[in-house]
């Protein structure tokens, strides 16, 4: 009969109206500034620089200014200037560091290619989305101080990926230690056991022997 479809439709809207008052699964709006949704772990938008320590971010950046990301970046939004001097990294090894590391977030297209090409796991994707500023030229050009975030933060926002990175780095450290031990084997036994007690080791697989033997 004509009209029954109309009544069915009215019943559907009435159910939705009433359901929105008592069924949280229907009423999904989050009142944004006051409430926040939990971002999914896979959510990622702009890159940041990983530093080993939260206390001295500039001193413990994993980045060694190799400039691969700068070359690979499709919209060319990364600017890196190598330092003239070398500074000891987290493991005490002397490394070039980025004197200038800047990302223009107004140009960045969040493609994550910089993250994928980085051999040092020094650049990762962040989860911040409130990047609005009142100054569209300077405000969106983030320098290395603004980009640096500690490893603990990375562990918090992307636990799965951070665990993988951690395992890879540990494997690299172990390989380096084995290599060092093999190199130090002809020498005295105490010299070989020295690096194994140092908790933070060399960052990557192809890293040179531990500082104890290098120096």
């Amino acid at each position, binding site marked *: *009969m*004509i*009209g029954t479809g109309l009544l069915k439709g009215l019943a559907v*809207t009435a159910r*939705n109206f009433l359901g*929105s*008052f008592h069924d949280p699964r229907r*009423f999904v*709006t989050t*009142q944004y500034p006051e409430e926040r949704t939990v971002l999914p772990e896979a959510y990622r938008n702009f890159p940041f620089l990983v530093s080993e320590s939260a206390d001295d971010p500039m001193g413990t950046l994993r980045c060694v200014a190799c400039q691969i990301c700068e070359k690979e970046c499709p919209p060319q939004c990364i600017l890196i200037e190598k330092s003239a001097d070398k500074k000891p990294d987290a493991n005490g090894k002397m490394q070039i560091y980025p004197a200038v590391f800047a990302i223009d977030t107004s140009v960045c297209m969040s493609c994550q290619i910089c993250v994928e090409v980085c051999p040092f796991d020094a650049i990762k994707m962040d989860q911040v989305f409130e990047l609005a500023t009142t100054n569209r030229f300077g405000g969106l050009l983030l320098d290395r101080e603004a980009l640096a975030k500690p490893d603990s933060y990375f562990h918090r926002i992307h636990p799965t990926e951070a665990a993988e990175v951690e395992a890879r780095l540990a494997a690299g450290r172990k390989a380096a230690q084995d290599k060092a031990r093999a190199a130090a084997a002809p020498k005295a036994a105490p010299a070989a056991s020295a690096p194994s007690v140092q908790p933070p080791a060399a960052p990557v697989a192809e890293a040179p022997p531990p500082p104890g033997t290098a120096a």
Partner: protein
Amino acid sequence: MRPATTYDPLLERAPVVLRDWLTGGLPGPARWLADSLITIAALLAVFGLLFAFLTLAERKILGRIQNRPGPNRTGWGGLLQPFADGIKMLTKEDIVPRAADPVLHFLAPVALIAFSILTFAVIPYGRDLVPVELDSSLLYFFAAGAATELAVFMAGWSSHNKFALLAAMRALAQLISYELPLLLSVVPVVLATGTLSATGVVAAQAGWKWDCLPRWVVFTPWGAAGFVIFMISALAESNRSPFDLPEAESELVAGHLTEYSGFKYALFFMAEYFGMCALSGMAVTLFLGGWRAPLPALEFIPSYAWFALKLLALLLGFIWIRATLPRLRIDQLTRLAWKFLLPLALVNLGTAAFWSLSAAWAGPFQLVRWAAALGLVVGPFLLLSRGLASGLAPRTYRYA
């Protein structure tokens, strides 16, 4: 207005008492003038506020139906939203296209709002609350209501915009089509009550059958059918979804409102809601017993409160329908009016005539009377609805 009757408690008489207290000291003609001005001011204030909060209620209810909260930032839970909207509308630039007819372009919203307000004059809002007591107030109401169509076309024509003109053409086709079932659904009420006066119609719906069933028109077979036809036509007359073709956003930009901005746009909006309120108020008066209480025990609630309750219920129905039904196509729209509602309304006139002729039937004949009347309502409905969709599907589209 008539003087307050003696029966009423204080709350019932309060509006009239208040007015008399304000204007009591004035001499004759000045008092008449002051009374009228107070009535006008009260009407504008009440319906202006109703309009404001109706927009808010509509947005809130639409939101809830779509499982979102609706506006809730301005004021307490969004309560000040209509005033923020009003200030926004007032401070916007008023743009008149260079090619437009400036006089007509200005007059269209003014005429529309004026005719919309005129229709409020004859609705009995309470026992003694009729702004203007006319013997033929139904005629006056529908004449004033029909005049708004002129303003809609004025707006479309004067804008000098193809979308606006196209929409105005559609609006005319729609409004004139639905004017007929609207009026024909009212004629049985006039026939049964024997009066063209709105207060007379309300007076004719007094009393209760077996002390519980009010003698409202809607509780008769022909009254129920007439009420449904009236409400469908009222939806179309007030350009509400699913009959909002004149301002179909997805097809015609904004229809006849395309070239209107700022406060003129707000006036069109206001007129739409005023038209909706007036038609709902008339539906309450004609079919739902006007300001009368549904039960004798509930008569202590003032009559204007009953009117307001019934009016709000109908307005919520409008919003509910808007949230549910998609827009009709123009051919479906006119077909519904001419091939379905109009014949139904004509048959309904016959049903009403049968009902009033058989008023004296008693005993088992009472059952025969109900059965015959229900058959006269349902039978044509089923027959006509079968013809409504036949031969139309599948529809072939040919593009130019």
